[in-house]
């Protein structure tokens, strides 16, 4: 091995050719990415292009966060359906789910696609109130098949509609029918029955309640449902809106109840993803799992048919068990779409029962919002989920969709994780949440 003449020469020899090639390519990709990032940042300040609304635009763009293969395929099929019915082509810009959410601020202030996927709830109203979304009241004039609850969930603070609902999924307690039949478990309807059932499962060698909170959000579902059951829908929404104090006895009671249930939950939740927790249910190691309907994604074939659920039992008989979390996904329009006509047409189609029918045929893991859709293709699980939501008196959107995003992600997630780690210091945790809440909600 001859001695290299210079440091540079030596360094160049050290890197294997394959790696050197990779490096150059990833460098290029990185540069392109940085360019794109800069682009969005810089464009954000540049205002809107005034391309006007062409009367017979032949194409419209859609920004989609449906980056997983299955939902991506469903979106493509729905857009094909739109093209067949209207002759307008849809250019779909798919962005990774999390990236899409994280960039939404820049995206909407830059040059967003004409139509984009988003969520109902505070998250929608927030951007509508900031003037970053297009008014869809006209589109709603042409839609039918939506209950008042859906219309309410699509309405901004100013009374106009800004959102077209497409699909939704309830949160409930999932279990495997075969396990329950074999052991003779009964669906609990009160908290005491749930605790007794959990104790029995422990005796039988099962983890009573599968639990995961590595990503920070799944535990929000537990908090939501306990707060809804203990304090009712209105208190929950007011608490999310910053109108109630986190230090109140009502919130303390939620955490006290949760602390009582924690021993029934799968231990070490903070290192586990929801997929891993779902698999413990699938492998019959856990007896129950509180999660959204999407838990079915971790099941297939006969296992999926074996999956069943019940709504979280009643805690206080004066409040009952008729409210639940059922987040709605759907579409919004940019504040100044390149072609308003084509965008409106697309949104009208997306809210129609035709679009819903395409989704029903292709996606067994979600429910469509339009009641006019032909739901004969639903699985037993989907039918039951639709019934559950239909019978609900109030529907919440999930904690991080019902409150300020900065509060949910920077305060609530660490606080809930703190509680799961150390359920004894509820008072200190709530005082800290309340202090941070005051600072955030006043800004």
């Amino acid at each position, binding site marked *: 091995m001859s001695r290299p003449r210079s440091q540079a020469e030596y360094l160049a020899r*050290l890197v294997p050719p394959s790696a050197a090639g990779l490096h150059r390519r990833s460098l290029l990709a990185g540069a392109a990415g940085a360019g794109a990032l800069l682009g969005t940042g810089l464009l954000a300040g540049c205002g809107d292009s005034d391309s006007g609304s062409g009367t017979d635009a032949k194409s419209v763009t859609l920004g989609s966060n449906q980056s997983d293969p299955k939902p991506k395929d469903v979106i493509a099929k729905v857009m094909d359906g739109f093209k067949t019915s209207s002759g307008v082509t849809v250019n779909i810009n798919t962005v990774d789910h999390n990236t899409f959410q994280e960039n939404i601020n820049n995206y909407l202030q830059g040059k967003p696609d004409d139509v984009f996927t988003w969520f109902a709830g505070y*998250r929608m109203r927030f951007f509508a109130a*900031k003037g970053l979304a297009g008014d869809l009241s006209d589109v709603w004039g042409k839609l039918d098949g939506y209950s008042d609850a859906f219309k309410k969930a699509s309405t901004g603070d100013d009374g106009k509609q800004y959102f077209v609902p497409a699909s939704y999924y309830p949160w409930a307690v999932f279990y495997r029918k075969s396990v329950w039949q074999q052991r003779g478990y009964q669906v609990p309807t009160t908290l005491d029955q749930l605790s007794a059932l959990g104790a029995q499962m422990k005796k039988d060698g099962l983890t009573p309640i599968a639990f995961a909170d590595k990503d920070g959000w799944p535990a929000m579902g537990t908090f939501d449902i306990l707060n809804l059951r203990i304090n009712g829908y209105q208190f929950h929404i007011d608490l999310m809106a910053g109108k109630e104090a986190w230090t109140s006895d009502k919130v303390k009671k939620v955490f006290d109840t949760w602390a009582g249930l924690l021993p029934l939950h799968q231990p070490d939740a903070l*290192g586990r993803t929801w997929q891993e927790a779902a698999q413990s249910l699938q492998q019959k190691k856990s007896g129950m799992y509180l999660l959204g309907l999407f838990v079915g994604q971790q099941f297939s074939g006969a296992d999926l048919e074996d999956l069943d659920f019940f709504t979280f039992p009643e805690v206080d008989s004066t409040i009952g068990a008729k409210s639940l979390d059922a987040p709605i996904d759907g579409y919004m329009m940019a504040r100044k779409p390149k072609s308003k006509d084509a965008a409106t047409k697309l949104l009208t189609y997306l809210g129609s029962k035709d679009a819903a029918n395409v989704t029903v045929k292709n996606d067994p893991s979600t429910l469509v919002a339009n009641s006019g859709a032909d739901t004969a293709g639903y699985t037993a699980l989907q039918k039951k989920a639709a019934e559950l939501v239909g019978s609900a008196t109030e529907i919440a959107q999930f904690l991080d969709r019902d409150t300020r995003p900065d509060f949910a*992600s*920077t305060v609530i997630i660490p606080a809930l994780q703190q509680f799961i780690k150390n359920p004894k210091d509820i008072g200190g945790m709530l005082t800290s949440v309340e*202090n941070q809440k005051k*600072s955030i909600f006043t*800004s």
Partner: protein
Amino acid sequence: MSDLPLIQADRAVPPPAATTTTGGRGRRLRLLSGTDRVVITLMVLVPLLLVLALVWLPAAATVLLSGTDWDGIGPLGEIDWVGWRNYDDVVNNYPPFVPAVQNNLLWLAALFVVATPLGMFLAVLLDKELRGSRFYQTALYLPVVLSLALVGFIWQLIYSRDQGLLNGVFGGDTDWYGDPHVNIWAVLVAAGWRHVGYVMLLYLAGLKGVDPSLREAAAVDGSSETSTFFRVVFPVMRPINIIVLVVTVIESLRAFDLVWVINKGRNGLELISALVTQNVVGEASRIGFGSALATIMLAVSLIFITVYLWTVMREDKR
């Protein structure tokens, strides 16, 4: 040995500045043609503008924004000034801040005390040109080529509590990534794995550049392998040592990717950089608050930069 200008600061050769003074400033300048002057001006100006626009402007903007409660939406004119409130909140009203500072310090200590010496040691071993040293080099350098995001994913497969390799092989149920007393150490192993390769590479480069006649002379004088390294080779590699030191400090200050991939820097893995991102990037958009955190980080970095520059400049004066 003309290929080793870095290492031999030969005092016998007069510094180039001396030529300039004896030659006289005026004549030297006239040697440059008009084109030369334009080229030089451009070469200085363009990078300067880029640095100003891409580094100093954002840095100044960050410091300014840290005094506001901007949420990232709307014109700049609507930004409200809140003074020191963000800093007050960071210190007194933000539970993740203190753990983040502690973790950053721990990160620095771990890289400095464990990973860096280990990398040096491996470099010395590899420098012996043992059989198959190419293979070892590639194996040890591999994690440096991988992105930290990928490193995080690889270790996820090893550390997962229910399905991971570690618990699977040893039959334990340690919650490597979820237990806040354990996960920072687990992550430091993953980060160190990568840092060792990096330091090793820098050191190997340095070792290859050491004049072999120095070692021969030491050997002739009867110096042992160890004392040759510590008394001759190590001091000669001063420039590399400084680079390694700086790289270690930088790596621990900008540590971010790994914890972000694992759990977004929460639950025991708080780092200041992750907190900045949590607040600034994403839907949260607490730009003002996040800027306050970033400014604190900038101030901490400045301490290291100042110390470094001070050392280097004092060196030049001597």
